[in-house]
């Protein structure tokens, strides 16, 4: 199991009021913000990997085969995210940030669903899954707010702002239907979690790349 980051991720202050004295406030550098963002994204991916391992370890091998639904069916695949290094490096800082923001926002609702599902999931490790899902939901929201702040700092004019239409919609899981069996619940849970695991890896890579880019003065930190 992947080791989880033990440090607590920071929480951005929602209030716009700065906490320092009048006129003598030092604005937080973008590099510091990106550093904090990188820590949160790292934790997101680590948690989701651990949850996937919890889920997979208790399944029979035969079932694993059936469960491998193609992840191209993830609801976030409509977002055209880059697929290799060259494509990523071509993107600008703001574009990358926008993409990250869109991804994070797309996962708000599904994560809440996962939290709800984990409570009654017919799985021996559903307690561990429950608190992981709750943590994932909270930290995704947290990171989304932070990325917004960074975007505001980098692009105050809002030139690169995106509309909420771009956010991938999520149709919902089978849990809402009556009479859905245990197996479909499990399969659906597994699929959603796998989608999120991949997306969290993307987000983590992008943010860390942005962090390295921002610290041009200190190439050693990359």
């Amino acid at each position, binding site marked *: 199991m992947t080791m989880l980051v033990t440090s607590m991720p920071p929480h951005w202050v929602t209030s716009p009021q700065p906490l320092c004295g009048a006129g003598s406030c030092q604005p937080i550098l973008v590099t510091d913000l990106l550093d904090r963002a990188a820590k949160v994204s790292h934790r997101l991916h680590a948690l989701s990997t651990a949850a996937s391992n919890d889920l997979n370890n208790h399944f029979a091998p035969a079932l694993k085969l059936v469960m491998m639904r193609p992840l191209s069916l993830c609801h976030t695949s409509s977002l055209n995210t880059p697929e290799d*290094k060259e494509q990523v490096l071509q993107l600008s800082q703001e574009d990358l940030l926008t993409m990250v923001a869109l991804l994070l926002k797309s996962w708000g609702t599904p994560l809440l669903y996962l939290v709800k599902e984990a409570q009654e999931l017919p799985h021996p490790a559903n307690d561990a899954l429950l608190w992981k899902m709750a943590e994932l939901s909270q930290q995704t929201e947290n990171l989304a707010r932070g990325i917004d702040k960074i975007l505001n700092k980098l692009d105050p004019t809002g030139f690169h702002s995106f509309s909420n239409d771009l956010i991938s919609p999520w149709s919902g899981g089978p849990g809402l239907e009556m009479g859905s069996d245990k197996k479909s619940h499990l399969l659906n849970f597994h699929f959603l979690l796998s989608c999120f695991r991949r997306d969290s890896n993307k987000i983590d890579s992008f943010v*860390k790349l942005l962090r390295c880019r921002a610290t041009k003065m200190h*190439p050693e930190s990359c």
Partner: protein
Amino acid sequence: MKKVFSIKLFLCKLFILLHILMSSGQTPPGRPEITDCRSPEKETFTCWWVPGSTGGLTTKYSLHYKIDGSQENYECPDYKTGGQNSCYFNKSYTSVWNTYTITVTATNNLGSNISEPLYVDVAYIVQPHQPENITAEFTTLDQKPYLMVKWNPPKKADTKSGWITLQYELRIKPEKALIWENHFAGNQRQFNIYSLIPGEVYLVEVRCKPDHGYWSEWSPTTYVQIPHYMRVRDTSIWMMIGILSAFICLLLTWAVAVKCNRMKKYLLPPVPVPKIKGFDIQQLKNKNSEDLILALGGHGFFPTNSTELLIEFLEVDDSNEWKIMPRMGDYNCQEEQRNAFKSLNDKDSGRGSCDSNTLLPEKCSENKFHNHACDNTVEDHSKQEINPRAEGTQTLSLNNTEDVTLLDTGTIKGKTNTWPSVYLAGNKAQMSQFPSSDNKLLETPVKNLNSESYHITHMVDQTEKQKGSGEPASSGTADQCYWVSTNEATHLTSSKPMEYVEVEKVNQQNILIVKPKSELSSSIDSSRQEYTKVSAVVNDNVLVLMKEKGAHCNHDHQELTNLSDSHSLHWQDGKLVNGSSVLAVQVSTNLAPSGYVDTSAFLQPMH
């Protein structure tokens, strides 16, 4: 019939064919298995498989893959780069965050076999190469030596752009150690190691790992030699040793200085000097007379019959001036002297000559027992003495605090002698009249003698002390007679003043009752001759000697009392003119040169 025959033929052929096949061992290939796929930099990746059984025929392997979402089956673009039974996907064929479904097919003439599919996402299979260019340098910073280890990330991993972020781990051990010491270095590219053993050769290795991937292999070992340097620990240890030894030396010096004398005695034991054997000061303090007598080699308790009294005498050195220890009341004096004797209380003869009960005054210029204070107090208590201190006088004073009487010979002519007090075990019948614990008559044989010696016995009287400055001869109920022995065998006028008076007992008022020799002749040695019984002492300087045989002390005492009261005695030259059988002796005038009462001078004329 034909059908059956053809069927049979077919079966036979089949059987033969199978038999041929079986005998040669050729089968379709076994199922291959894909072991793993790895990407060193998240841009390319390689997959390896393990073949199953070959089936005896040449088997060909092919790898096919599908990318997530499309059903197209692609074959491996490169079978060689990765080695045997491998497939290498270069950059153009690699896309991240897509699921690859990879299968391997083994084919031979007889058939083929497909492996289990493996689902691969490049982002999850990153395992970088080893770190490169590892350097270990020994440096000192502020006199603190340490080893600075530096390294570079593997070349292929693109950390500059931030595509991959690596974390490093370092391990180090001395050359001959068995266990590595691991250190996690985080994202940094150097690490400092402290607490090194000087003169040792160390082995250093580094490895790295991407954020969410696998650890690389350990780098090739780097050897580094630590020069010989002085560790702070060594320096501080030497300092501590130095301080500790200095402290111990000081302690020893102080101890030696304080206990100088004792150490001298221990290291250089004094010359043994003969001492009185069996003489135990402590025992003297005991109130058990029988034990004491036995310890001293006595013959047990004295016989009831006074005529059988056996007394051993203490020979002491004489001087013209000798003074008996002051009486009680002079507590300090007694205390000191007693303490002095206490220190001599051991039966070994390992004491210095100064310390032993020697009577040789020359050895001790500084006499421990000589107490100037005592001298002074003696004069203060002159009342209590029989005879005040004067030349040629003999004074006997009875004092006692704990049944110990210390005699102190004052020095006038520079001669000082001391001898321990002597208990006289008294006559049993006589003792019964007194508290038994108080009255003891004892004698201690003295080995150390000089030419001038005399025997003196005296008795310690506890009650005397309690009375304070008791009056010499005024009152008293019980009678106790001193024996003062005189040696009549030696002529009175002879040069040898071996004369003594045996005192049988003394009463509370210091009345020495001297018995004549004739009474004792039956039980006493011929060497012991004249005994004169002193019945009373009057006026501090007169010994009233009793001449008559068998006179009772009580009776005598009464007479003496009457005598003193009536003053009917006439004194002339030591003679008491009286009709009674009591002889009074004025001690002062008739003192022999040895200082003893010469009663024979008085006896003869009276006869």
